């Protein structure tokens, strides 16, 4: 009987690993995500995500093959789509670290990405926006500069705001004395209209703030829509 109790969870875990192999190899994340957001009006609720990011005074030093990046994103939990804009340190990609990027995964499609040869300075403040624009395009901006846009079919039902690493062993942005800050975190609510973007409004989302291994997050999101995160290696 005891043996069976041990065996059942083990078998379930093995089954989960077979059914969801990516859960084993998923990247590491520190920041916040919403649940599935749907509108009672029947219109697509999520039409954009925006955050102001204040960079720390030092940047993580990574080796070739490692990656750490920061972004707000609209996410299709149901269809596996995403559109994100932000900045990344990835030593393989260019000599400018970090550099701005925009990436997306269409429904049923593959990830594509464009990288700039410029990026945020240490201790700088920039506003990152990804939103639906004219023609149904998804556009990514740093302040008022467009990083890219795409006509890819992205149908978001959630928003995420993260510092993402390819592994928990890779250093995150921020240190205990100079942290990364997400502020003015909002999403673009399209509940009022399916097509008239002038009726869409920026709102504060409900987020679960969390930190994966070797990082920490100090959230005051409930009170002032911001949080700090940093590396704890």
């Amino acid at each position, binding site marked *: 009987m005891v043996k069976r109790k041990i065996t059942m969870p083990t078998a379930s875990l093995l089954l989960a690993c077979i059914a969801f192999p*990516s859960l084993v190899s998923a990247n590491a994340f520190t920041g916040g995500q919403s649940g599935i957001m749907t509108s009672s009006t029947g219109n697509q609720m999520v039409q954009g995500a925006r955050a102001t990011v204040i960079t720390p005074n030092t940047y993580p030093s990574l080796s070739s*093959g490692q990656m750490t990046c920061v972004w707000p994103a609209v996410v299709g939990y149901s269809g596996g789509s995403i559109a994100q804009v932000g900045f990344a340190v990835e030593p393989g990609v260019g000599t400018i670290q970090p550099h701005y990027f925009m990436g997306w995964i269409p429904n049923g499609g593959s990830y594509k990405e464009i990288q700039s040869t410029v990026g945020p300075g240490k201790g700088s403040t920039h506003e990152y926006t990804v939103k639906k624009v004219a023609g149904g395009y998804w556009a990514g901006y740093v302040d008022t500069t467009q990083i890219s846009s795409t006509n890819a079919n992205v149908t978001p039902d959630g928003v995420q705001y993260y510092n993402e690493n390819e592994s928990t062993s890779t250093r995150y942005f921020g240190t205990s004395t100079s942290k990364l800050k997400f502020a003015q975190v909002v999403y673009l609510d399209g509940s009022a209209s399916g097509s008239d973007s002038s009726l869409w409004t920026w709102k504060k989302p409900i987020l679960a703030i969390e930190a994966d291994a070797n990082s920490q997050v100090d959230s005051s999101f409930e009170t002032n829509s911001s949080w700090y995160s940093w590396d704890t290696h």
Partner: protein
Amino acid sequence: MMEKRRLYMILGSLAVVSMLCVPFAFAADDESKNSVQTVLQTSQDLSALAEMGMTLEQAPAVKSLPTISEEDAIKAASEYMPVFSKTATNIKAEYQIMTNPNFQAFSESALAKNPTLQQNKHLEKTPVYIVSFEGIKKEGHDFKGSNKKPTVFSEQNVVVDASTGEILYSYNYR
């Protein structure tokens, strides 16, 4: 006698008309050849590029000659991508005329060296080299809760301004 004269006149007229038509026939042939030459040749996936806002058109044979050479473009891209220049199994360059109204985040030096780019703030029929580093390994970004493994790219593309040698941006899709 009159009939013979008429026949000679008709034959003569036909000969003149034929001679006049020869240059037009060659011209038509030339146009046909030109239309063949203007077919875009690229190893890039044009539908993927369209999804990223980029369109290419065949560079004209004479106009808009690049200022820098293909070797210079590969050198500039390799200096910008030192890791991939060492790990790539193949590095190649294509000269193209590129339009991309979607990308605006150029470096100050790229804008300063190209007055047209400075004015347009985006690529508008801009002569570029697309330098491709093939056989590399670059992991794409992801989102939390994704049910797929992050994409691993095997090609890194770098867009080099063919007039100035400046790196304009880079991209991945395969």
